[in-house]
């Protein structure tokens, strides 16, 4: 379980998160929606400890993320994260990309790590791309590679930071398909997305962030189909006017 308690974060004088309270339960898919600059991506990176916080606390399975005594590298093995910019390491093949962390961080043997990597590539449908370099793969394939790479550390939670935003529309579907697959396997996921349709059909709960605060939270039906707050209604109206993404 991830517990986010009164988390505050500032960049200089700019307050990005103004006291966020949020729980992520085991096995659920929580979608974070909101306008650009509402703090959703920042919050995600705080959960992983990639961004420091100025107040409050984030607790993952009873361990405080920002406590200086916490072994953050150990904790990060529980938290897989996939970014908006597909960040496949360009000097490694797909297989090596996935095998690297198991080998270096989890100290598995080379053979074992490669076998594990192949398994995870197969899982996201990239089994035949094992020897390709990221530069020889499409954006969607690279993003699935990033998912496989995070999964290879066998995390308890997966964090997705607008993973389809940088993709060409025709490549969005395959990535969302992979995420649905993970959900069907019971993975706990926190998904930052602009894709309202994905949130509606897949999320157990949806949280709408507005100017660094959780404005509204509830099931997808409650928040997306029947929003109570004015800001949420405004945001959703704006989003619906955008052309539909091919999903």
């Amino acid at each position, binding site marked *: 379980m991830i517990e986010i308690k009164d988390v505050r974060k500032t960049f200089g004088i700019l307050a990005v998160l103004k006291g966020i309270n949020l729980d992520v339960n085991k096995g659920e898919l929580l979608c974070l929606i909101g306008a650009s600059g509402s703090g959703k991506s920042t919050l995600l990176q705080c959960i992983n400890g*990639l961004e420091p916080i100025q107040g409050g606390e984030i607790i993952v399975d009873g361990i405080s993320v920002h406590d200086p005594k916490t072994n953050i590298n150990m904790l990060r*093995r529980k938290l897989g994260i996939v970014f908006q910019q597909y960040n496949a*390491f360009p000097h490694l093949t797909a297989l090596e990309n996935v095998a690297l962390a198991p080998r270096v961080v989890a100290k598995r043997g080379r053979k074992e790590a490669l076998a594990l990597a192949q398994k995870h590539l197969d899982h996201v449908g990239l089994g035949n791309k094992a020897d390709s370099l990221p530069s020889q793969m499409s954006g969607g394939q690279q993003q699935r590679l990033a998912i496989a790479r*995070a999964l290879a550390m066998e995390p308890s939670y997966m964090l997705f930071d607008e993973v389809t935003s940088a993709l060409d529309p025709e490549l969005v579907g395959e990535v969302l398909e992979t995420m649905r697959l993970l959900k069907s396997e019971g993975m706990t996921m926190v998904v930052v997305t602009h894709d309202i349709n994905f949130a509606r059909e897949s999320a157990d709960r949806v949280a709408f962030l507005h100017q660094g605060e959780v404005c509204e939270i509830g099931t997808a039906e409650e928040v997306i189909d029947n929003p109570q707050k004015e800001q949420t209604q405004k945001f959703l109206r704006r989003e619906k006017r955008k052309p539909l993404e091919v999903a």
Partner: protein
Amino acid sequence: MQFQFANQGLAWSDAYFLAQGLLNTVRLAVTATIIGTLAGIVLGWLRTVSVTMRIATSPFIDILRSVPMIIQLILANSFLSILGFGASPFWFGTFALSAWMAAVTAEVVRAGLLSVPVQYRKSARSLGMNGFQELVHISMPLAFRTALTPWIGLVLSLIKDSALAGVVGYVEYMRATQILITRTHETWLLLIGAGLFYFIICYPVSRYSRRLERKIVV
């Protein structure tokens, strides 16, 4: 009374003398490249770690990069002698050339490391790698690609600058050539020979680097 120097013209025995000079140049260049590059990698990395480090190492870098090699060699020679290091001319030359190589390599390494997009480093850290693991497995290999071409340029400079090590008494190829010129007055022949020799060692280095670049470019 008239007297004459013995062996005034070029003789076959001089070829042996030149070959020794050639060997000395290669020894000097290879040693200084290895020591200078290793030191430069550490120094360059240190310069990316913090502002304090960058400021602390700046005088070393700036002085070595801006003062002509021949002055550095003479100063290193005097300085080390005053300190009582009775080293051989080879080590004086190696010391000065390595120090220069370290300073210029450090900047190339620093630029290479800074060119690594932050998202790769973030990804690596998010997988649980610590800073050192990230450096070794991600930043260093990626920086290597950027740094290779300028670094080869530095190696070529170093090979040519090693010709100045004669001023500290090290008889490398250029010094050997000068000695023979003084005796034989065969200036043209010997200098063309020396130029050709430097070309022959530098050209394969730059050719090989071009091949290597093509291989690792992504």
